[in-house]
């Protein structure tokens, strides 16, 4: 997934996640056409220009995911038949068990959890400290360093594949957790987003704390971090989702299924299970990789959408 961003301090950056704490849409205010002037929508327009396309769009999004869940509870016979079986006749977790027999699913899951937890934690900490430094500390050449970090957002990790593989493999990092985690730890996105947020904090409160003799560390952890919880939550959630879904690097750096993350393990599963009867197993795998993110998204979508569309619209 790619991150939306314009340029440093540009006009298009949404500054503060706190604004989204309210109950409105994340753009802040409603600007639909005032019906008292335009007149109410005729019902035909409401249906054909409103509810109907909306329902169709939602169905197109939801049905494939529903199909995935149903498929994971079917038997092999039910998916290779010429007559479409909509609902599994004998819903069972057999596919999940079978998938675990082919590749070590609990292990893959634990690997993904570990890589995500460690990677996201380090990234969020790095983002907080870097953002604080760029927002509040003086240093010669600070602007240029910030710009360099910012521009890194434009460089896709895909193009660094061969050089990073050579580096990590040379250090003995193939099939290791640190080899999976290390190259992705630098965070331009989090640094950028949190710096924007820190700079919008009430400066007089921080200055008052400084007068009272509070050092940088105590100002950071006692004031800046607590005041920026929504923004930090946004960065954390986006980072977690990114780490969980991360595919190309773990795919390249792991060959042993004891260290593979879920997406890589699923690739292996697809490779060894070539014929259509394996679909219940593959759907079980898809459920395991998709469902956790979907659940998190359902409850915290406001933060995630805000984080991912940050910087797009004024």
């Amino acid at each position: 997934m790619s991150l939306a961003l314009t340029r440093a301090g540009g006009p298009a950056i949404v500054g503060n996640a706190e604004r989204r704490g309210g109950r409105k849409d994340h753009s802040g205010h409603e600007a639909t056409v005032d019906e008292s002037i335009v007149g109410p929508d005729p019902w035909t327009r409401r249906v054909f220009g409103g509810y109907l396309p909306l329902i169709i769009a939602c169905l197109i999004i939801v049905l494939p995911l529903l199909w995935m869940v149903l498929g994971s509870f079917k038997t092999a016979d039910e998916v290779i038949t010429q007559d479409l079986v909509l609902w599994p006749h004998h819903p069972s977790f057999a596919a999940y068990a079978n998938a675990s027999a082919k590749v070590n699913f609990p292990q893959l899951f634990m690997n993904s959890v570990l890589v995500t937890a460690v990677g996201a934690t380090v990234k969020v900490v790095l983002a907080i400290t870097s953002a604080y430094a760029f927002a509040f500390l003086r240093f010669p050449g600070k602007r240029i360093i910030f710009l360099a970090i910012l521009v890194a957002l434009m460089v896709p990790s895909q193009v660094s594949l061969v050089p990073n593989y050579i580096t990590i493999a040379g250090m003995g990092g193939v099939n290791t957790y640190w080899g999976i985690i290390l190259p992705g730890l630098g965070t331009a996105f989090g640094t950028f987003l949190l710096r924007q947020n820190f700079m919008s904090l009430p400066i007089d409160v921080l200055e008052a704390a400084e007068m009272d003799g509070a050092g940088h560390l105590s100002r950071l952890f006692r004031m800046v971090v607590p005041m920026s919880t929504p923004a930090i939550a946004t960065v954390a959630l986006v980072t977690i989702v990114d780490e969980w879904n991360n595919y190309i690097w773990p795919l390249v750096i792991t060959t042993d299924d004891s260290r593979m993350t879920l997406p890589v393990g699923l690739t292996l599963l697809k490779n060894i299970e070539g014929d259509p009867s394996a679909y219940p197993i593959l759907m079980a795998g898809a459920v395991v990789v998709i469902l956790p993110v979907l659940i998190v998204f359902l409850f915290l979508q406001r933060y995630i959408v805000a984080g991912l569309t940050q910087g797009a619209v004024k």
Partner: protein
Amino acid sequence: MSASGTIAGPRRRLNRRRLRESLLFVAFVLPNAALIAVFTYRPLILNVWYSMLDWTLGSARATFIGLGNYREFFTKDAGAVLGTTLIFTVVTVGGSMLIGLGLAVVLNRRLIGRNPARATVFAPYVLSGVGVGLVWTFIFDPVGGVLAAVLRKFGASSPQWFLQPGLSLTMVIIVYIWKNLGYCAVIYLAALQAVPRDLLEAAALDGAGRSRTFRSIVWPLISPTTFFLLMTTILSSLQSFDLIRIMTPMGQGTTTLMYASYLQAFGGYNRAGYSSAISTILVVILLILTVFQMRFLERKVYYA
């Protein structure tokens, strides 16, 4: 930093404070900056060097061949790869922006349940590309797939999505749009909601119909968003990998620049030098687009 020896007390104290502040800055920024330097910037330079080598991945020996890899690419693979990249990018970008705008217009109406609908439409954007690719592989399967079953109901047989290159590309494009259109929809929606209400009311009072209002007021006002989306979706489309890898592992009909670079190094050929050459070409394209975007955004004109 200035650090002269003999100065009065307060000055020295100030200097010491500046020094401590600088040290804290280094402690706070260095890990992050070093990681980005080593794993983001250094590879860009290494790529250029590697791209001039005839080098098998894992081999200790490499031969310098100058621009040989580039010559090979532009005489052998460029036509097919650049063509596929162009089709994939144009159709996915156009498709997701167009459908996204349409959905945004609908979501901007006062409808019951439009917030859950907005979230639903956005959801696929955050889901694992591998998981999504598997789900759609199942749907498109010519034997057990639900699409094939529906076609059978109408007496048609399923196309061979996974065997014919053109169909494979079509399939991956459809899934890519499915996964990414929510991003365009949500950003367009925010732009629509930022259109000043009084302009719309004035247009309505002047007797402008909906389509006229959209063409003459809304579309020009959201043109910066259109441009922004155009650039960001082109950039991410050029980098897309997950769906292509999981749905068409051999890159049949779907070998874009990105995927060609992956296949050459890690798809069995182990051609590190050639892969780096393709990566470098991709970086140059991304760079040109980024510079173009920044230049353009400097002038924030509405009537672009």
